């Protein structure tokens, strides 16, 4: 009998986590390893190019995308703790390199290998079926009430529709509560938030109100961009819930 080879994942941590929220990256690594995944961290990674691409600076975005293709060229699975960056690499690289057959072939190759963090855990690792503790009906009362915000690109570009919820439902000490109008955008939209703050803020206000009314003590999502936006309002308004990346919730590092 031979032991199965551990799944190997190459982490693309995203620039926002690398520079602003490194603790999220640590939780990602801990959860992946706990799920039996061998994690490596390809050297030299920075930004996938998405902020530039979304602002129309396609030629500048291409430079960063090409770098990213190089860095991730021979990895079996690329795991990204962001639906937004994941969508860039899976979906939008194909548009970005549509007119360059050689780079397009490489982008297509990458798009087959790139997974958002929760999607990878559920679809590739099958982690959901082996939670650390079995979820039971008599889950302790002290469980954290967690509301999940499905970020737009994760939901509609990567089409990850239920992996995060399934992981949360299986996680010990987590009681998932419904977030009203969950699929409404939080109003971040990258540069949108600073180009049209008056509209962005209206959307944010509704999201924050929905989270407050959900009764959750924690609002989670798979994207630090959205969470930076929502969290910015939470800390400004001193609201009674915290904002955490799903990897942190699953890691239970502050649970």
């Amino acid at each position, binding site marked *: 009998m031979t032991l199965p080879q551990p799944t190997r994942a190459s982490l693309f941590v995203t620039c926002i986590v690398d*520079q602003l929220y490194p603790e999220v*990256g640590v939780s990602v690594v801990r959860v992946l390893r706990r799920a039996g995944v061998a994690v490596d961290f390809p050297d030299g990674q920075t930004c996938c190019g998405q902020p530039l691409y979304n602002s129309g600076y396609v030629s500048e975005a291409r430079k960063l995308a090409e770098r990213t293709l190089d860095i991730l060229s021979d990895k079996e699975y690329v795991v990204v703790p962001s639906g937004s960056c994941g969508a860039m690499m899976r979906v939008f690289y194909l548009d970005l390199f549509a007119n360059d057959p050689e780079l397009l072939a490489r982008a297509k190759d990458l798009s087959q290998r790139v997974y958002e963090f929760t999607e990878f855990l559920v679809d590739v690792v099958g982690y959901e079926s082996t939670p650390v503790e079995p979820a039971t009906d008599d889950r302790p009362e002290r469980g954290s009430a967690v509301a999940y915000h499905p970020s737009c690109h994760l939901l*509609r570009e990567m089409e990850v529709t239920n992996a995060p919820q399934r992981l949360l439902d299986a996680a010990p000490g987590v009681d998932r509560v419904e977030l009203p109008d969950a699929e409404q*955008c939080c109003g971040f939209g990258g540069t949108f938030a600073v180009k049209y703050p008056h509209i962005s803020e209206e959307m*944010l206000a509704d999201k924050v109100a929905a989270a407050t009314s959900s009764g959750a003590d924690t609002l989670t999502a798979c994207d630090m961009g959205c969470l930076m936006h929502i969290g910015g309002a939470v800390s400004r308004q001193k609201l009674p819930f915290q904002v955490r990346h799903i990897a942190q919730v699953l890691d239970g590092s502050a649970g």
Partner: protein
Amino acid sequence: MAEVVTRQFVPASQAAVKDAQLRQALRRAGTGFDGTRREAIEEVSPEVWEEWREEARRIKEHTIGHLDYYLEMLERNVTAAGGTVHFAVDAQQANAIVSQIARANNVQTVTKSKSMVSEELGLNHTLEAQEIDVFETDLGEYIIQLADETPSHLVAPALHKTRGQVAQLFADQLGVPYTEDIEEMARIARVALRQKFLDADMGISGANFLVAETGSLVIITNEGNGRLCTSAPRVHVGLAGMEKVIPSLQDLAVFLRLLPRSATGQRITSYMSMVTGPRRDEDEDGPEEFHLVIVDNGRSRLLADPALRESLYCIRCGACLNVCPVYQRVGGHAYGWVYPGPIGSIVTPGLVGLGQAKDLPNASTLCGACRDACPVQINIPRMLLHLRHNIAEGPESYRDAGSDTGSLLARGFAAIMSSPRLLGVGRKIGRRLLAPMAKGGVLGQSRIPLVSRWTRSRDLPVPAPRSFSEIWRDELSGKGPTGLQD
């Protein structure tokens, strides 16, 4: 052409988000229309709905891809049925054509059923300048005509008006007693327009579809005004953007299933009327003349760009407006022209010129709700990205005061992100500058340019003391303090 105030998007949207009545009206319409739309999809099942969307898209793709061919077929068959087809390159020409038809027929009174193209052309003003009385007859259009406003939604033109505002308008303009009873207000409109329908010399309608093989114009309505406008007057003029053509009668079925469900959630509208030429000699009634005016007015520019061509698949259902978080906050008027919302942010720059509508493609979070709602699967976010590219890296004429700053920031960002070493240095400098101003690890309201546009309402994290890359190198790559080995 209708006045273009797309450059005013920022001040107009700033005013709109503060308008509580507007917000309430938008919320009511958004949840109302979208809620019934979703119920209608569940009723037929999402799988069947997807099949319909795919079929509709195939039809549009084929027709628009051979538009010259189908326009020729349409023209031939309208003519064979005794109608006359006129082709207009722009709004001015289209208005001149309708005016000339009116003059030739000694028209004094016109009744109109809803037509977004006529809004686009600004046709009413042209006709009124020739002392022709023009009556909008769709209740929503009637309201905004009385108010001298423009539509704020593709299918519900007066969506932005509350019942109280309509009541006041009717009292002021029609001299009727003030009433907020909606049923009574509808009755007032019925009474006011009843005789106009029967007396009008000319009826003007839009077209939801033009069937090439039979030369038919199809309109889909609920109130009955469309039937009256196309039946009672001596002359009927149909106005249509050139993209409205579909090949066969049999192609109509799927669109009759998709359009009402997507627009209002109705399974079908009260009426579908199909006009093929003028009345036949043996008919009881119907117009003596039928004219079809087919309008380009910038559509060939959208057609010529393969990345934007699919915007011409739009069937003007308004579903994308009802799900759009931006439209839902700012309403239709902020967009500054006839076509608002996500699809308007593509069509409007196409028809009025991107140079004066640069805010429209940018004022979106690219959340993608519009694409999911679109009954013909138009990939709106993709086209918004394409337009952003044209603005950022396109011709000199699109550049303005902010363009150089934008390009500089983009180039700077790309340069830093191209070098992990530079990025590390950048983070350290950023932290050194910002950390002293931060409280609890975040920056509160700040006066730093650009940053202030974020921090006016949201705290901003400052760069971390150690990057994840450093933590990985020091602690995670081998057996580190996490106690977990690779």
